[in-house]
């Protein structure tokens, strides 16, 4: 570029000199001065052209043309602000929706953990053969050690077990969540501590294991957040631990933990094959696929069974990719959202195409003129492509703002209490890759439409177009193309609306289910009983009984209960396999199973869960009386379809063959544990006094303001036992809202997409009809002149609209039903098959189409035949 400037700088001087010299020569030849100068100029030729030709030689022609085109594009956009506003805003919304969803997908699905080589990580567990769909993924310690040693499929395997600790170094006893991990845990994940070190293999032995690695948040809040934290001592469950390392802020495995300690198993536990008590994560060896590894594990399980038939019969080790484990719930949701966003973009594009074609038809004369003046096809293409890219880039920039805003809204609309469990949630942002995605999308859309518009509107017959007086005309193929666009729009709109309707309806239904608990007057709190001082069942029972007695007598409290896993906890309930008395003992692998809940006697009254037949628990169901159980409605229907379950006996197989039979004394209504569960999950309830267990949650129903009771409950607990920490304090209402937050977001987003779809298709139908009425003004004029009444004209226009909409709907209705079916199976628990929704939205779209053609129809009816015939 600099060379170019230098070369051109002296050109004028050179030319001047040249002409002067020639003049001089001519004078020397004897010409008069004046004539000599003219002769020199004549001989030189056109100075301007020479300058320009030379200049062209040094310039980058295409860049200059591009700037020209961009300028022209901007000028055209300014000239038709209405078109610009619609085109840019629809495209911005379309691209913005995609960007926002993509930024979620990017964070949650593509980068959930910052581990080295995430795709090679697998969770390894043992399947004990019960038919529970979502078994907790545990493995027996001795089996884990054998698998790590004798199979050649893993680079390394780490084990861990998470549980709560009580932090006793502070004035108040505080619960902290922690995890015992094997020494190679951090190395396997490929994450180095932010400060200090992780564990040495020697620290995996009891006695040497009093060291802890703490999480970033714990370091900040509890240890002052400075370097001196390393080497400090903290009291956990009454023992002193030395802090040796601090993990980086984004380390969140298995869930965001406050601290990690060595998993020091006692020799007896290390040799245990009976209890599936620890969890395992492994890194696959290079070249070993997950399927190969799974097959190897199956083979190895057979050998284990042969060697240890008593403990390992019917148990099979298997694995799942860590990524797939995460995807289980999120993938269907996000695929749905991404598809919906994609459909919105397609709709926006269809609209844009419509608008562009209309614009191009109006500009046919201009195109013809340019072609006549010598513009090559390539030059014209470049011109239109740069023009459409200009506005799609404007739309892209607008879309970045739309998505920034949406992402912020998404992130803040769910409480961090819940989102901290979603790996990658804190990484949702509009980052570089998202920006590249957005701008790339904008450019591609722009280029595509520039070319498409040129292709369809740009093939002009020069003579015909330049001769014609009208604003340009529509050829038959162009009419067909635009009609096809309307059909496609109506189709997409219906599919999207049905998706949106189903999702919102699903969310509403879910919210209604939980509203049945009347959660606004319930408070939830979890007392954390230290394991060492509450090893004895009767002591646990005593603590809860006293807690319930004292809390339920607080003024204004109407009921109090403890339960294993309250609804909307976002945690799956424990499952238990059982046998029914009188039925042949089933072969292994076919053992029936159900969710198992431990509940105190007032649980059903506290959460307003109906007792359908028989009775609820009472305080008389205690350690001294016969063992009883309640079953849920769907459990009764599944296992005793033709008999009364009351009085039947079942035995939980986990407790061994010696366990006593439980007598079923009542049937209670179904409870939807979490939003992803079906309502019909069979559930067994055992009374707390007969099956006491640490870690039950306290639920308190008050007349009003349930959270106001927290301090009194705290006082009661401190007075009962000052070593008991208190965790998970919230109003039940809050818990329900957080729990279904992700579904609410999905419902809202789908609702927005649906509304956009409706608006876009309305605009699309209107645009095409208005255009076709304008094109047919002359025809309509002739019809009116020949005696057609306004009603006939109206029918003509309406019929056109209904035809297009009808074709679109005819295709879309079966598609929507198919989508509905697919959604019902994919987004389980939320969406169910619903013909009403499909029918309702079909009607809505028809109405919108009628409304959209109202203005064009009126315009057509007012056509004055004289004006129309003079139109050209």
């Amino acid at each position, binding site marked *: 570029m600099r060379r170019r400037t230098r*070369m051109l700088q*002296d*050109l004028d001087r*050179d*030319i001047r*000199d*040249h002409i002067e*010299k*020639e003049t001089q*020569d001519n004078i020397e030849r004897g010409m008069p001065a004046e004539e000599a100068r003219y002769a020199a100029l004549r*001989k*030189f*030729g*056109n*100075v301007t*052209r*020479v300058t320009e*030709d*030379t200049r062209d*030689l*040094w310039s980058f022609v295409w860049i200059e043309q591009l700037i020209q085109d961009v300028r022209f594009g901007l000028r055209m956009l300014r000239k038709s602000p209405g078109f610009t506003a619609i085109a840019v805003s629809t495209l911005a919304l379309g691209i913005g929706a995609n960007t926002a969803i993509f930024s979620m997908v990017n964070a949650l699905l593509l980068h959930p953990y910052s581990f080295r080589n995430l795709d090679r990580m697998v969770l390894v567990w043992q399947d004990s053969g019960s038919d529970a769909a979502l078994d907790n993924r545990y493995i027996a310690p001795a089996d884990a050690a054998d698998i790590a040693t004798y199979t050649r499929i893993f680079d390394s395997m780490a084990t861990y077990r998470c549980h709560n600790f009580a932090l006793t170094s502070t004035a108040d006893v505080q619960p902290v969540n922690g995890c015992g991990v094997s020494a190679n845990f951090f190395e396997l994940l490929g994450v180095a501590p932010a400060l200090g070190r992780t564990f040495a293999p020697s620290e995996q032995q009891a006695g040497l294991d009093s060291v802890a690695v703490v999480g970033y948040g714990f370091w900040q809040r509890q240890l002052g957040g400075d370097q001196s934290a390393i080497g400090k001592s903290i009291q956990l469950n009454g023992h002193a631990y030395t802090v040796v390392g601090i993990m980086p802020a984004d380390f969140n495995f298995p869930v965001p933990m406050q601290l990690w300690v060595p998993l020091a198993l006692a020799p007896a536990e290390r040799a245990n094959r009976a209890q599936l008590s620890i969890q395992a994560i492994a890194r696959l060896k290079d070249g070993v696929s997950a399927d190969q590894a799974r097959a190897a594990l199956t083979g190895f399980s057979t050998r284990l069974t042969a060697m240890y038939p008593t403990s390992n019969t019917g148990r099979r080790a298997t694995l799942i990719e860590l990524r797939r484990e995460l995807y289980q719930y999120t993938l269907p949701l996000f695929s749905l959202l991404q598809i919906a966003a994609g459909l919105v973009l397609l709709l926006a594009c269809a609209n844009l195409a419509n608008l562009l074609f209309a614009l191009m038809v109006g500009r046919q004369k201009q195109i013809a003129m340019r072609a006549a003046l*010598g513009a*090559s096809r390539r030059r014209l293409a470049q011109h239109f492509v740069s023009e459409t890219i200009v506005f799609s880039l404007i739309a892209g920039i607008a879309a970045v703002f739309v998505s920034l805003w949406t992402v912020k809204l998404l992130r803040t609309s769910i409480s961090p209490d819940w989102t901290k469990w979603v790996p990658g949630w804190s990484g949702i942002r509009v980052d570089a890759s998202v920006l590249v995605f957005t701008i790339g999308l904008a450019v591609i859309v722009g280029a595509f439409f520039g070319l498409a518009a040129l292709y369809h509107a740009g093939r002009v017959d020069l003579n015909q177009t330049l001769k014609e007086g009208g604003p340009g005309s529509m050829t038959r193929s162009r009419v067909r193309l635009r009609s096809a666009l309307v059909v496609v729009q109506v189709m997409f709109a219906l599919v999207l609306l049905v998706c949106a309707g189903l999702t919102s309806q699903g969310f509403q239904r879910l919210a209604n289910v939980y509203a049945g608990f009347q959660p606004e007057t319930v408070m939830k709190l979890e007392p954390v009983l230290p394991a060492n001082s509450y090893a004895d069942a009767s002591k646990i029972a005593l603590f809860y009984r006293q807690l319930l007695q004292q809390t339920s007598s607080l003024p204004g409290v109407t009921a109090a209960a403890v339960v294993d896993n309250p609804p909307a906890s976002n945690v799956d309930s424990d499952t238990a396999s059982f046998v029914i008395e009188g039925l042949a003992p089933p072969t292994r692998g076919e053992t029936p199973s159900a969710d198992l809940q431990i509940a105190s006697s007032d649980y059903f009254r506290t959460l307003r869960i109906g007792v359908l037949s028989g009775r609820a628990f009472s305080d008389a169901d205690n350690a001294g009386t016969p063992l009883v159980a309640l079953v849920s409605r769907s459990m009764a229907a599944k296992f005793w379809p033709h008999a009364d379950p009351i009085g039947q006996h079942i035995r939980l197989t986990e407790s061994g063959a010696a366990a006593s039979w439980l007598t079923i004394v009542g049937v209670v209504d179904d409870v939807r544990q979490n939003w992803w569960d079906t309502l019909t999950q069979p559930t067994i309830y055992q009374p707390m006094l007969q099956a006491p267990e640490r870690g039950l949650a306290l639920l308190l129903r008050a007349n009003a303001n349930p959270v106001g009771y927290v301090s009194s409950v705290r006082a009661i607990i401190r007075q009962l036992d000052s070593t008991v920490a208190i965790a998970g304090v919230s109003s039940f209402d809050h818990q329900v809202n957080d729990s279904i937050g992700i579904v609410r977001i999905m419902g809202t987003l789908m609702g927005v997409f649906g509304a956009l779809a409706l608006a876009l298709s309305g605009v699309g139908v209107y645009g095409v009809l208005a255009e076709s009425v304008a094109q047919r003004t002359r025809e309509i004029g002739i019809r009116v002149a020949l005696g057609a009444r306004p009603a006939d004209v109206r029918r003509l226009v309406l019929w056109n609209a209904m035809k297009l909409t009808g074709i679109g709907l005819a295709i879309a209705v079966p598609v929507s039903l198919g989508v509905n079916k697919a959604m019902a199976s994919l987004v389980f628990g939320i969406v169910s098959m619903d013909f009403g929704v499909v029918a309702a939205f079909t009607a809505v779209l028809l109405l919108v189409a009628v409304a959209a053609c109202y203005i064009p129809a009126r315009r057509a009816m007012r056509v004055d035949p004289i004006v129309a015939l003079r139109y050209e």
Partner: protein
Amino acid sequence: MSTKDRKERIELLQGTLDLLILRTLLLGPTHGHAIARAIEVNSDDVLQIEQGSLYPALHRLIKRGWIAVEEGTSENNRRAKFYRLTFRGRRQLAIETSKWDRLAGAIARILRPAEQGGEL
């Protein structure tokens, strides 16, 4: 269309003019006007070039690296641009000259098939 026609015409002229410029500069560096004069004089005023077209041609040759330009002082003591053949330009001249000879020979043979080749 006209753009294309003009291009073809220029190209035809271009090659010839380029060759003439390179040949002229073989005698030593000189300025624009002198080149034009030299071509006219050396061809016994048969080749009357439109002098202006010299400049785009000169710039094109510079861009290709066949000639170089430097500031100098002309005979009447004024600053002027002197054009000089580069090594690559010399090589190019040899190539172009032999090409031209073959072309001229071939055309001559076609035009006057009876005679013993053309003379130039």
